[in-house]
């Protein structure tokens, strides 16, 4: 009964979305937008609760539960199993969309109720499409009779906290960008693009961006410790699908800052707002349609791919058509000087766009080539490293300089003194890497220099007096970028690796580290058996950790997985993977020492924290409701 109620509630939610969308027609229907958005949230929440209930009580008469759950699953994973599948993740998607709609409806409307109704109508229209997809092509409440007595869903790879909480974070990020999308379309229809619009959209972009950052970082961390390949980013299409909206969102809130402060970049900001959410939808489409081969394979139904494709074409094509038609009538904004804060932000936007472009090309080119010539290729890390890393390095140089430029017109005389500490730190880091750590790769040396250059420059800003929240947030986030770059560079350039076949009792030396194979023994878990190696890790003779990598064999479903043994030390991680026996008493062991690798994720956390701080600032200064709230934005006293 409860699943039928859930199904019915989904229809009600779709009806609420329809009412919301009808506001586009005007004629007074728009007064219903706010209550409709709230109703949509209630219905979607109740439908989600109904599905969650079915998972928690293991109602195997639901096909979805049978396929994705099992009575033996721990309760936590029964719960997260709700969205660890196609239908459930779409239900989560519409739930988050409803949440965003209700948030827009309840939050103050700085641009007036008419604008809010327009924006809510656009959001309702987007929701409606996804409700249609859910109800017509991916019904999560479909029954399966007779009900099996046991479920199929014990996939061990999916029973992991990292993977369990990665999709909700990403979805909040993806869908948060739908607010910016709706605001952009509404602004074009209403012709109200300007600083006030920028201030209204900024918190939503920051919020979405923060969640995207956390979601991507969590996904990367999961891949690092769960896949047992020793890497943390594989430039896999599914990863790129999440990275592209992130890059667009990053560019967006930087250009929103220019629009808010200087009333410039109007059309550009609108385009970015449309693009950011379009890329989110494209990402979902790529993952769900199975068009791109990926390690994160999903079962694929071409009909669903076509449906998603139509939605994508409708929304993105529609928004871009509005853009082509309306953006020309947006009055031109202000011009500006090259040497100014806005000039630096434009450069940032150009570089981010280039980055977005190369990632986009690299992700979709294999598919395009296969479509046209039938030739099968793969584009992997060498391509992305060769294109993204140089762009990133140039951007880091600017990221340290930009904050020292003032708005409108900036002198440059004060720059050398301001940048001296960062320059010294970068030079010192390079020399240290060369002399102490024997780093010879140019890219790695540049990476160390970039991390210290940006890190020191950002800390310097934090040491200034009279900082606004926005400035603290910006400096924190930039510092986070520096920390991540340091982690990525150090864990790559200073990594030690050993691939050995050892007998029990053998030891292997890896740089300053020594690993001794103490034992290999069978162990058993609730639904698996494993061979577990015990490796004693010592550094210069002193024992520091014992690693227990496993090679697991799961029953029901029959599956083999590798559990890496990881010791997190202050210098970095020691990472071990156990391979198969060679048949002569030796065991294959792959060992890595990855210095400072955890800084990668710590940096991402700092970025999100920076976003949160900037957001807190918005919440505070929005109360006076006047533009004067923004006058306090950080600008170092230029030595003019």
């Amino acid at each position, binding site marked *: 009964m409860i699943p039928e109620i859930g199904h019915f509630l989904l229809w009600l939610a779709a009806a609420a979305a329809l009412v919301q969308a009808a506001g586009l027609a005007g004629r007074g229907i728009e007064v219903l937008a706010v209550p409709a958005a709230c109703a949509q949230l209630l219905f979607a929440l109740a439908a989600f609760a109904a599905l969650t209930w079915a998972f928690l009580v293991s109602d195997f008469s639901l096909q979805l539960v049978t396929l994705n759950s099992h009575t033996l699953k721990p309760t936590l994973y029964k719960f997260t199993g709700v969205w660890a599948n196609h239908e459930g993740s779409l239900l989560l998607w519409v739930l988050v969309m409803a949440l965003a709609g209700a948030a827009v409806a309840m939050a103050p409307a700085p641009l007036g109720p008419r604008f809010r109704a327009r924006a809510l109508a656009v959001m309702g229209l987007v929701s409606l499409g996804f409700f249609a997809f859910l109800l017509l092509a991916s019904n999560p409440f479909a029954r399966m009779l007779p009900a099996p007595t046991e479920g199929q869903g014990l996939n061990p790879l999916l029973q992991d906290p990292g993977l369990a909480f990665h999709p909700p974070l990403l979805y909040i990020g993806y869908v948060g960008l739908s607010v910016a999308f709706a605001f952009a379309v509404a602004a074009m229809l209403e012709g109200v693009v300007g600083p006030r619009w920028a201030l209204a959209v900024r918190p939503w972009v920051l919020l979405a961006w923060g969640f995207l950052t956390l979601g991507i970082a969590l996904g990367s961390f999961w891949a690092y410790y769960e896949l047992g390949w020793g890497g943390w980013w594989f430039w896999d299409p599914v990863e790129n699908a999440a990275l592209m909206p992130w890059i667009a969102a990053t560019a967006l809130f930087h250009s929103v800052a220019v629009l808010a402060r200087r009333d410039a970049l109007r059309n550009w900001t609108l385009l970015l707002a449309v693009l950011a959410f379009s890329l989110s939808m494209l990402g979902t489409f790529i993952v769900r349609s199975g068009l791109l081969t990926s390690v994160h394979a999903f079962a694929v139904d*071409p009909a669903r791919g076509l449906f998603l494709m139509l939605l994508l074409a409708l929304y993105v094509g529609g928004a871009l058509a509005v853009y082509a038609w309306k953006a020309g009538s947006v009055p031109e904004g202000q011009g500006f000087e090259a040497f100014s804060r806005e000039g630096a932000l434009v450069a940032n936007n150009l570089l981010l766009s280039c980055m977005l472009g190369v990632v986009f090309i690299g992700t979709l080119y294999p598919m395009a080539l296969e479509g046209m010539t039938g030739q099968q290729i793969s584009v992997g890390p060498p391509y992305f490293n060769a294109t993204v890393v140089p762009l990133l390095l140039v951007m880091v140089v600017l990221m340290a300089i930009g904050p020292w430029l003032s708005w409108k017109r900036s002198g440059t005389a004060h720059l050398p003194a301001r940048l001296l500490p960062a320059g010294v730190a970068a030079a010192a880091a390079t020399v240290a890497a060369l002399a102490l750590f024997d780093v010879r790769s140019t890219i790695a040396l540049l990476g160390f220099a970039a991390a210290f250059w940006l890190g020191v420059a950002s800390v310097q800003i934090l040491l200034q007096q009279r900082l606004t929240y926005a400035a603290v947030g910006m400096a924190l986030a930039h510092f986070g970028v520096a920390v991540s770059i340091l982690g990525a560079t150090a864990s790559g350039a200073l990594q030690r690796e050993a691939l050995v076949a050892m007998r029990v009792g053998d030891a292997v030396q890896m740089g300053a580290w020594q690993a001794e194979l103490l034992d290999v023994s069978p162990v058993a878990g609730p639904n698996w058996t494993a061979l577990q190696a015990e490796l004693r890790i010592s550094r210069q003779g002193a024992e520091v950790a014992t690693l227990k990598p496993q090679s697991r064999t799961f029953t029901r479903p029959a599956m083999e997985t590798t559990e890496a043994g990881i010791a997190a030390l202050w210098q970095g991680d020691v990472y071990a993977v156990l391979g198969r026996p060679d048949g002569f008493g030796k065991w294959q062991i792959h060992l890595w020492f990855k210095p400072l690798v955890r800084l990668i994720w710590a940096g991402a956390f700092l970025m999100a924290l920076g976003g949160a701080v900037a957001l807190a600032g918005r919440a505070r200064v929005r109360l006076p409701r006047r533009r004067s709230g923004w006058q306090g934005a950080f600008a170092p006293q230029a030595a003019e």
Partner: protein
Amino acid sequence: MNRRALLLLPLLLFLGLAGLLLVNLGRPQQAAVHSRMVGKPVPEFALPGLDAEAGLSSKDLATGKPVLLNIFASWCLPCQVEAPHLEALAARGATLHGIAVRDAPEETRAFLQRHGNPFARIGLDRGGQLMLAFGSSGVPETFVIDGRGIIRYQHLGDIKAADVAVLLRELERAQ
């Protein structure tokens, strides 16, 4: 520079992309591998059966009457989904034999109890070698074998309601 044309550019680029995606969606996504064994005699084999029951051997597939050979496993969900259609085939006079792949006998038995047993004979292929010898790349798959032990037709994936008639027709043709 014509501003209007510039504003139209994103839309045009997107339309190009959408066209590309559409073309790719139209192509088959995961090419299924058809067996090279179609048209050839079944490989020689003799599999044990469940408990005391007789197993399945290549001789059982060459008795003069065309049969269906279904490759299944208790851990395979599509196999559960197609179970009613196998029953329908049996009810309409087809002789079915089953090969349970990589499955423990007690689990196979529980599966048959729950989802019905349309099979005349069942062979246990615990290692999955025979499945490979048939050129089958997954479960479930169903083969039509004529009375002389020659594989005539291969059905990939689960049998849906519409496939029942197709398989009956293939059995007819294999006479």
